[in-house]
């Protein structure tokens, strides 16, 4: 019987070959392109599943096949990025294949199809059709009316484009009218600066030279020309002031917007992103890189545009005075342009490198300063200094290398300038001697190109600053382009009042290439309290992170009240979750602010009620400023138990339907634990609760205990049932009991 599932796409290279193998009417249920051979060399192979057999093509193009039969199973495992698939029957292994995890989703699909069909052979029933439309890759139910799973379609593999600086336009757009007026002022100011050299012509030819030749001084003309020079200077001063002011304001605003947008985006990214980045690097990107862009826009880019305007205007003026002399004057220009172009690439890579090395230096600071107690306790100050010195030396070496190119660059431009002037002098004198031009024209030319070439020199600097700014912009856009791996749904499903049922359906999660949660299913009823038990590293905290949607599951789905949590807006979803962590984090601010963190508009009465319920009220009143006491990094120190109760009050205040406690009491002593436990008992009432606890005694109130081991559930039941079963829970319990007795004995002696 055919299934209502769309035919999987065969890899294009295999299409013809594979189809030739099929019998008429035989359809392909699932295909897996193998990219490794048995000895783990990169090679292409193919595995095909049809309703009656499994076909495999090895890299040397030999085909093998196994008819589907009862008792066949496909075993799947992965290690270090390599997936392994074994076909076994009851007596032994028939075949095995390897592939890299890029093919994992196809492999999982093949396995589930295989299992469905073998199961059908066993029962004699037609293969069970999947209950509902699910995504072929992640098993998440598809949103109604959509074929493509939005979660699977998001994987991002493209590099951001290199024209990064132009992307800043997105931030410049709101200020376009200020920018236009700034440019108008700039054009005016530049034109005004070009007037004085022009006036030197009549000053020379009509005032000075006639006087030197014995004629009386033309005072009227002289005064007129001098007044013109003064007027031009004044005009250029006022226009220049206005343009610089306006454009500096705009560029400052652009970079402020850039900074805020980047931060806003950054803080929405998943924990996965923060796990992979270093704090120092992120801080540098948002802080100094955006500042560098601001400086670039307000100073360097502005200067550059002014220069281009000036060169264009000068060129026009020079040609209008004397085309031949103008041509000679402008001759070195292409040469300089070519030089700038060739150096550009080398400098850009160099500056990117400097940035990364600089990040390395700050990373060392970010590592050692928070860990200073460890450094001092193990007396490793010298080693850390050495590490810093090495990073600095690396920084120095990279800078030295780029400075070699850079230092040669500027003097060469200056040399070319001098040569250019020399050419103009020589050609000019020759033309004066032939009476083609007057002395005034030559002087005006020299005055023009004196400015002109100095601008070229400073223009050449634009290369480096542009590259620096582009590198900075790239690093910022790297953040902005990063799509959260916990994406907001396109069309969020509204989540009204939550009852608190949680359903985990065959979920899997891998961190890097390590599979942390495997094929886990669990139903939690509203109001139920679940205790998660297991060795450390058994995946308890990961499971909780998945429920909070700090990460998204790699396979399967988590539903809250029957709704996939990925289809709900993240903020909507998290509003229903109260989280109490092992190490409560208090922000810098008052206690009241910290309690009201999840509900900033809470009234004082609400805050105090929450604090009372959390058994925090009394100790808060004992503080000198009560609820207004400052806590957090630099504030008043609270003990671990007190901090924990503040964080419980925080969770209580938002009145969540689901409560998650991750080792909430393990960091405190037994006495404080009792206090906290009483606070927690208040918190648990009427809420779905998931509690992780190392001390099994703290979970005595749990309706069900879930014992986890290596990412899977091994036992479920209440304390008495699990004790009677004498399984994993019983062993854990016995071990703790022995420990407790031991402690008691040692304490008694």
């Amino acid at each position: 019987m055919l299934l209502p599932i769309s035919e999987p796409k065969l890899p294009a290279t295999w299409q013809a070959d594979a189809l030739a193998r099929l019998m008429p009417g035989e359809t392909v249920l699932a295909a897996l392109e193998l990219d490794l051979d048995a000895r783990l060399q990169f090679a292409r192979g193919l595995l095909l599943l049809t309703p009656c057999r499994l076909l495999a093509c090895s890299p040397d193009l030999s085909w093998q096949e196994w008819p589907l039969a009862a008792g066949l199973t496909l075993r799947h495992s992965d290690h270090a990025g390599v997936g392994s698939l074994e076909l076994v029957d009851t007596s032994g292994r028939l075949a095995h294949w390897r592939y890299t995890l890029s093919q994992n989703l196809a492999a999982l699909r093949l396995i589930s199809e295989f299992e469905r069909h073998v199961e059908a052979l066993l029962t004699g029933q037609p293969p069970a059709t999947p209950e509902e439309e699910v995504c072929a890759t992640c098993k998440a139910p598809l949103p109604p009316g959509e074929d493509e799973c939005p979660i699977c379609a998001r994987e991002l593999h493209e590099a951001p484009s290199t024209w990064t600086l132009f992307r800043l336009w997105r931030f410049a757009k709101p200020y376009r009218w200020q920018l236009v007026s700034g440019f108008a002022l700039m054009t005016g100011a530049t034109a005004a600066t070009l007037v004085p050299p022009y006036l030197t012509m009549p000053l020379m030819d009509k005032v000075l030279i006639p006087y030197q030749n014995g004629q009386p001084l033309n005072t009227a003309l002289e005064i007129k020309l001098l007044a013109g020079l003064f007027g031009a200077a004044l005009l250029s001063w006022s226009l220049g002031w206005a343009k610089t002011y306006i454009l500096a304001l705009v560029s400052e605003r652009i970079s402020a917007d850039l900074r805020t947008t980047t931060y806003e985006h950054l803080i929405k990214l998943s924990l996965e992103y923060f796990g992979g980045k270093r704090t120092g690097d992120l801080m540098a990107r948002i802080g100094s890189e955006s500042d560098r862009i601001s400086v670039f826009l307000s100073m360097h880019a502005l200067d550059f545009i002014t220069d281009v305007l000036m060169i264009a205007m000068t060129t026009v003026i020079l040609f209008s005075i004397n085309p031949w002399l103008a041509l000679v004057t402008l001759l070195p220009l292409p040469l300089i342009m070519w030089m700038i172009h060739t150096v550009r690439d080398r400098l850009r890579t160099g500056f990117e490198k400097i940035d990364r090395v600089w990040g390395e230096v700050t990373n060392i600071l970010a590592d050692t300063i928070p860990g200073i107690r460890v450094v001092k306790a193990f007396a490793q100050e010298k080693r850390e200094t050495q590490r810093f010195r090495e990073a600095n030396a690396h920084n120095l070496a990279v800078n030295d290398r780029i400075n070699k190119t850079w230092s040669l660059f500027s003097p060469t431009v200056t040399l070319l300038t001098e040569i250019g002037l020399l050419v103009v002098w020589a050609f000019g004198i020759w033309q004066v001697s032939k009476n083609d031009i007057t002395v005034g024209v030559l002087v005006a030319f020299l005055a023009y190109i004196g400015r002109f070439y100095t601008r070229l020199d400073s223009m050449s600097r634009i290369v480096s600053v542009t590259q620096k700014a582009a590198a900075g912009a790239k690093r910022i856009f790297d953040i902005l382009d990063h799509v959260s791996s916990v994406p907001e749904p396109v069309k969020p499903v509204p989540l009204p009042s939550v009852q608190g049922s949680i359903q985990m359906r065959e979920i899997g999660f891998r961190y890097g290439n390590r599979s942390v949660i495997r094929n886990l299913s669990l139903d939690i009823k509203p109001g139920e309290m679940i205790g998660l038990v297991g060795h450390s590293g058994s995946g308890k905290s990961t499971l909780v992170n998945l429920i909070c949607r700090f990460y998204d599951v790699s396979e399967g789905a988590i539903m809250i009240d029957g709704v996939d949590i990925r289809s709900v807006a993240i903020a909507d979803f998290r509003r229903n979750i109260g989280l109490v962590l092992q190490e409560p984090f208090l922000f810098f601010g008052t206690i009241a602010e910290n309690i009201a963190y999840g509900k900033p508009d809470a009234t004082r009465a609400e805050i105090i009620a929450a604090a009372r319920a959390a058994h925090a009220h009394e100790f808060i009143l004992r503080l000198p400023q009560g609820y207004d006491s400052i806590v957090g990094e630099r504030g008043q120190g609270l003990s671990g138990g007190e901090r924990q109760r503040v964080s419980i009050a925080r969770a209580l205040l938002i009145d969540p339907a689901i409560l998650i406690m991750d080792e909430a009491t393990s960091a405190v002593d037994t006495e404080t634990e009792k206090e906290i436990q009483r606070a927690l008992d208040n918190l648990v009432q009427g809420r779905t609760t998931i509690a992780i606890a190392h001390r099994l005694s703290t979970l005595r109130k749990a309706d069900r205990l879930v014992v986890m081991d290596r990412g899977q559930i091994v036992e479920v039941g209440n304390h008495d049932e699990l004790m009677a079963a004498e399984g994993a829970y019983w062993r854990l319990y016995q071990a703790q009991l022995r420990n407790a007795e031991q402690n008691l004995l040692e304490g008694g002696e």
Partner: protein
Amino acid sequence: MSAPLNVNFSLERNAFGQLVLIDANGIRHEGVTPVRANPISAPLEGIALMSTEGHEVAWIELLAWVPAPLRALIEEELSTREFMPEIQRLNKVSSFATPSTWEVETDRGTASFVLKGEEDIRRLPGGILLIADAHGIQFMIRQLSALDRHSRKLLDRFL
């Protein structure tokens, strides 16, 4: 070096292709997997045989001390588990900004992979570079200076 040490266990392969370890007490551990303690810095020293439950059932100080037939079994099993292609040449990178697709020659053939970010390139002591791709496969560059000029130039843009 010293003569092969007598190990106090034996190994065999069952019909399912798994390694079976029979320890000094005659207990059979089905499906043991050999694991190198220092796969990069000292691959031939310190190999543990782990049971399916993740417990260590035997420890081998030096692979060379193990009798040849046993060693062959262990090495065979290791070769089907260990996957850290050594990059010998970079042919092409799609862009210098990440994520970037790299086409490389490795000791296991030609491959391409996606580098998610520059921080996925890690320096290990001894000048070894480990490059993790988007799926968590580790590619290794044992010696940066041993690469050809073209590869070094490409790689340099990411370091």
